[in-house]
């Protein structure tokens, strides 16, 4: 159902929802950027419409809501173990179309790739998704190429105009709350063209793995991992077991984001690291995103949000790399 309500009513609705839900949305953290007097747009809890950053793309994705950066899974002492408590409230997440498609990649990895991950599931099952429209493309987006520019599987779509809030609800709870609101036909804004487009080869021959294409990145990449930490579809984590220092017999196990770009990722017992070379790390990441994942599941892992390109301090472009790989494959197939 589509509705039109005014902003005050929307904020009242938020206040009601906050009783049972935590609402997460992209927010401007003033002064929270990398450099002095720069902001960061990332996910945080909100209680009013005004706190949501609609006009810019968030630097970091929504994934930290479902996959906390550092999450305590359980506590242990001697023979006893206790799992961490799930949040008391359910969650509502505001996100754009590419990110809603990314949710599918997270679900695939954590729910369908072998055993179900209970820590992911307990958050995922209690989260509702509200789509934010895109009137225009942002600088590095290539969602159109990835087929992620439109979404229909949202719980609600919300658009804020100068005066009004337009809602398209697929969610009973909202329909009930908006029973008295003015019905309205609402179609989500979506882009049909980006500044960037990529073409991904159907299959990538083994020869590409040994190509000198990757050497360029060996010297350029500083292995900071930003490209994967901002990525809505990167799902790697590592484990940390630790004992509280003033006891030593009690501790916890944490799950923490990891990145194939960062030192330590391929370290094995004995101290050997299997992938030191940064060009090879780039290859591994790119192949995971546009080839390996697809070999096992039915779509590409990358959803074309462009955040990796937005954030790389060394101006390494993932989308440009895809196109380089494509050119190379075409060359080989000739």
């Amino acid at each position, binding site marked *: 159902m589509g509705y039109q309500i005014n902003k005050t009513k929307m904020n009242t609705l938020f206040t009601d929802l906050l009783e049972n839900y935590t609402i997460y949305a992209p927010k401007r*953290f003033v*002064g*929270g950027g*990398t*450099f*002095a*007097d720069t902001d*960061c747009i*990332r996910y945080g809890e909100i209680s009013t419409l005004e706190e949501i950053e609609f006009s810019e793309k968030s630097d*970091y994705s929504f994934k930290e809501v479902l996959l*906390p*950066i*550092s999450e305590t899974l359980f506590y242990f002492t001697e023979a006893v173990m206790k799992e961490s408590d799930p949040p008391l409230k359910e969650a509502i997440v505001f996100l754009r179309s590419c990110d809603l498609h990314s949710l599918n990649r997270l679900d695939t990895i954590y729910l369908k790739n072998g055993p179900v991950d209970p820590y992911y599931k307990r958050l995922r099952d209690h989260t509702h998704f509200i789509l934010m429209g895109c009137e225009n493309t942002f600088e590095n987006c290539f969602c159109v190429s990835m087929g992620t520019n439109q979404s229909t599987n949202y719980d609600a779509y919300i658009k804020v105009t100068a005066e009004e809030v337009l809602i398209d609800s697929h969610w009973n709870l909202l329909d009930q709350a908006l029973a008295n609101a003015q019905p309205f036909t609402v179609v989500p804004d979506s882009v049909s063209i980006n500044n960037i487009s990529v073409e991904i080869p159907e299959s990538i021959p083994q020869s590409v793995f040994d190509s000198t294409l990757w050497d360029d990145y060996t010297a350029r990449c500083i292995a*900071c*991992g*930003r490209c994967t*930490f901002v990525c809505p579809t990167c799902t790697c984590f590592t484990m*940390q077991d*630790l*004992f*509280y*220092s003033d006891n030593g017999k009690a501790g916890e196990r*944490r799950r*923490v*984001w*990891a*990145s194939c770009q*960062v*030192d*330590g990722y391929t370290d094995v017992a004995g101290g050997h690291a299997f992938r030191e070379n940064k060009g090879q790390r780039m290859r591994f990441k790119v192949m995971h995103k546009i080839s390996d994942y697809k070999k096992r599941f039915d779509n590409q892992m990358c959803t074309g949000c462009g955040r990796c390109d937005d954030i790389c301090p060394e101006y390494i472009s993932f989308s440009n790399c895809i196109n380089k790989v494509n050119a190379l494959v075409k060359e080989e197939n000739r």
Partner: protein
Amino acid sequence: MLDLNTKKIKKNAYRITKVRGETASRIRIPGGLLTADLLPKIQEIAETYGNGRIHLTTRQGFEIPGIRYEDMDAVNTLLQPIIDQLEINQVIPGKGYTASGTRNVSACIGSNTCPFANYNTTDFAKKMEKEIFPNDLHFKVAFTGCANDCIKTRMHDFGIIGMTEPQYDKDRCVNCQACVKACKQKSVDALSVENYKIVRDAAKCVGCGECVINCPTRAWTRSTKKYYRLVIMGRTGKRNPRLAEDYLVWTDEAAIIKIVKNTYKFVKEYIDTTAPGGKEHIGYIIDRVGFKEFEKWALDGVEFDEKTIVKGPVYWSGPHYD
């Protein structure tokens, strides 16, 4: 027949040069930042009244040599739009600079452009300029964005070095240790790892912000409040050149402005009136009357932030040739 009051000329920011009959006009750029449209105006002065050359001064000014003393009024007229646009305090409009004792407040490029800078050096420099100009006393003040000190604040009477107090959100930390490496390799090795999270040795940390710059997840961010290290009484010269020493660490804008203004009062009280040209350097005055007396004047009415560390009494080194 030239009949000149050299003291007035110098005060008006013209130099008595080695060439008889020729002066040089000094145009100060507070904070070192100007808009490009001023350059043709400077060019016009150099080409109309100077010898067509311009010297770039160390303190971020332009010095236009080869100007005839007779042309100073005409040059002052051409200087007016520059003075206006740079918002320089002036007593009589149209008559050029009101004083030249206190030198141009200079600044590194700062947070307008530089990734390391912890604050907008130009803005603070301009704010200081508004507070202390025009003034005949010989003061040198400089602003630098971080401890790299590109403007060389350590060679100034007052050097202001930007600091940030890094804020750690452990829930955003992935233990990549980029911050630890940056602090160790580029700064003072103030970070260590404990149970996969980062511990900052606050006593060691110099507030450079390298950890913030290098953190890929925004686990480290800057403090909302801007902090500064105030270093004092660096100087070059014949008798005892020396680097400025730390006086305040983790201080703030209000305290710095107040201390600099108070120091003018201190100098007025104690300056050696028989010194040649009435010029005695503040550092030598402090050497003469003692640090404690200087501090008494400097801190009059100053309120410190709770984080501020006062490093007095200050002792300086440097070679003594006298």
